[in-house]
């Protein structure tokens, strides 16, 4: 396993970090660097709450070992939430009351945002498949799809 100092760019801030060999990116971000907008739900890649954008791809940060990263660019929700697309996503979801306890929110919004930023478009099918990789125990899935429809409708 690689060890030593890694260079991370988190939300446009450059950080040099010396992770332990078994340290996950989730732990680096939350416990080490204080990015508590990245939530921890299961530590096994099942719930999606800890999703971040790593080198332009959405990933569950609990499944990534920080020591394996080299010059990585990372965005958490707070790093993108001022983007107009992110703001619109946020607004439609909240106006639809799609989130209740809010714990799954950053992971889901960031995942959708990453898709929109990478592909410029979002189909309902893709949105369904993205939602299917996240757990919302409050049960807002259909309301989230309504919010996504609203978002896409406003786009047309």
């Amino acid at each position: 396993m690689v060890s030593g100092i890694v260079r991370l760019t988190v939300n446009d801030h450059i950080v040099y970090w010396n992770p332990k060999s078994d340290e996950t990116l989730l732990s680096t971000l939350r416990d080490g660097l204080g990015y508590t907008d990245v939530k921890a739900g299961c530590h096994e890649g099942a719930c999606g709450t800890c999703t971040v954008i790593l080198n332009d791809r959405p990933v569950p940060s609990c499944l990534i070992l920080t020591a394996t990263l080299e010059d990585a660019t990372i965005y958490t929700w707070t790093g993108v939430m001022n983007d107009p697309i992110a703001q619109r996503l946020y607004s439609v979801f909240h106006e639809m009351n799609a989130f209740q306890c809010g714990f799954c929110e950053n992971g889901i919004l960031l995942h959708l945002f990453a898709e929109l930023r990478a592909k410029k478009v979002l189909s309902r099918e893709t949105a369904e498949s993205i939602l299917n990789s996240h757990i919302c125990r409050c049960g807002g899935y259909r309301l989230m799809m309504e919010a996504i429809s609203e978002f896409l409708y406003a786009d047309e």
Partner: protein
Amino acid sequence: MNNSSGLYGAHGCSEYVGDIAIPGCVYAFILRSPHPHARIVSVNLSGALDLHGVITAIDGTSFSRNCGLIPSSTDEPPLARSVVRYAGEPVAAVLGTTSAIARNGASRVCIDYSPLPFSPDAAGTLRTEAPRIHESHPENILRDVDLSFGPVDDMFTSATTIVSGTYDYAGSTHAALEPHGVVAWWRPEGRLWVFSSTQSPHHLHVNLARILGLEQQAIRVIKPRVGGGFGGKCETFSHEVVAAQLSLVTGLPVKIVLSREEVFYTHRGRHHALIDIRLGINDRRELLAVDAGITLEGGAYAGLGVVTSYYAGQFLAIPYALRALRFRSRRVFTNAPPAGPKRGHGGVQIRFAFERLLDTAARRLDIDPLIWRKSLALRPGDTTVNNLTIGSCGLTECLDRVAEASGWHGDPDGSPHLGVAASGYMSGAGFPILPNRLPHSQSIIRADRSGLISVSTGIADIGQGAENVMRQLVAHVLDQDPRYISVTTGDTDLCPVDLGSYSSRVTLMAGRAVLTAARRLRETILESAASRLKQPVDKLMIRRERIVHRDNPDRGISLRKAIALAEERYGVVVATGSYRPGLKPARYPGSALGPSPAYSFTAAVARVTVDPDLYRVNIHDLWIAHDCGKAIVPAAVRAQIHGCAIMGIGETLYERVSMLRGVTDPVTFESYGIPLSGDTPRIHAITVESPDPEGPLGAKEAGEGPLLAVIPAIANAVSRALGIDCNRIPLNPETLWMDVKQAIKDSRES
């Protein structure tokens, strides 16, 4: 009223307990028993204490009092003393400067166990030679409730149809996305601050004081944002008491956030229930009598199990009129994590059984199960045979609405198959868990010259949107922009007492307290305005943030000005409100458990197909009509109905807390089977409003009730699709395949 927005609720950047960073914070790790039942021979903490970075370590000897809210059943030590009773039970705790050091330290604690015989289920612990889990309960039964109302035997004698069934309802767990967590801090000035992911700051407050031997006023409990509860964060837990004790000892802020595996051990989920029901019906197809035997597998400790034992029987009496009722409900100790209150506490299992049995009866009588349910429904003003008083009841409208929306009266027997069920649930427990005559909910409302209205009440918003309900009630009374109504909750220093988020009590009880306070504040403001405007108070009203004359709305002053006038006249402009249900318990043991100031009602229809080869259920649509009295925040009511639908699907089809060789398995999301977006059918949420005289603006609950009807509606649809009685939850392919095999065997034998 601008109330449809979720913008007032939690959001992803809110601070949950795991996000709290107090400088100097240290971390504790809880060591848990690997054995389902064992005597603790010795605990040696010295290995941990020798590790650099370990601050201290404790075991069960640090505590002389137990957890448990119900005074008669405080049987759960914060850390096990002498015996462990389930695998995963907390035994020792190590405090380190980092969580990794605490965990390392815990691995150096030596505990010598002497394993004892164990049984994870009631069949095992009810045997005469079964291992005794608590010395105080030789039969392994926490509570054996045997109650009878009305002439049960006479009713069965006069019944023209008697149906009966045996039902098995699996245990399940809440699995809130946010794991439980706590930060406890014994502050330099000599008070303990406890931040916890809890549904009841008040009960945690009272319980911590009792367990730690502190004065209540020495403790402040603060509930940050909570990432879901569903009943799983009601009780006082080991991690809360341990963190508090470690902070008392060290003076340091102590943090514990449970891992997902630990959350599964902490449990308090739905009791696995084994139910036998017999139902007597007369020739007019009225329900005469119900006789039920209920066995609840409770796990190793009491928790709120006494309540469960009563609710399971009491709620048989709603939502249909019965002339007689008898139930025997036993809550049994097992070597498993304690079961407890999960959404729909006590009512879900028996409602599944009852609604399945009604469908069995309807088939035998060859009558439409939906139309029949309408004829059976309780009516406003009814008193049930066990003395529950029904204020409002919109059940027949709920049934009409789901029938119409689902096309029930078209061809309910065509494929996909439809199933119907109905239910009722409490809007708050009529009597407190800790017996006293104090208000259940209180509120302070204050206005100042800035124009801001500040409301404080001790409620716990756990994601359901309770704070916004309070905000909108105030907005309704004062006609103020909701943005300028600040709501402070969940802090025992800042807020007057509310008992917490359980038994679906907040909208009704805290709502009444807030409404009373807001109306009193309005009077104060109007009086001051009246004197300035030289008009009688009763000629004035608040409209769009102005105090205006009723006959001439153009004349008036701004609300802000009126508040300033009131401040000039009285000093602080403040009003209070409190609420205590005016119920009187009936004269039978346990009569305080079940009565509520108001009851909500639900009807659900499910439309399903079942794969004939794989026995996989596909739910296409769910229609759920819920009578919430009055929807204060319609979008939140809708969200709660959706939440109940999806939690209901999970319980009906997938979820099961099971034990493998005495150890909980699964303990991960991946293997437990929580419903995902792809498992979700079309959900048609229908709000029915039958305003209740007891509710604020007529409102009743919406957070738990809808769940109860969803589960049997799906089960009834699946039973119709397969042409057999599906009486075991979850309806997974394995269960259904066995049910079909059994049905084939039964039909051959007959």
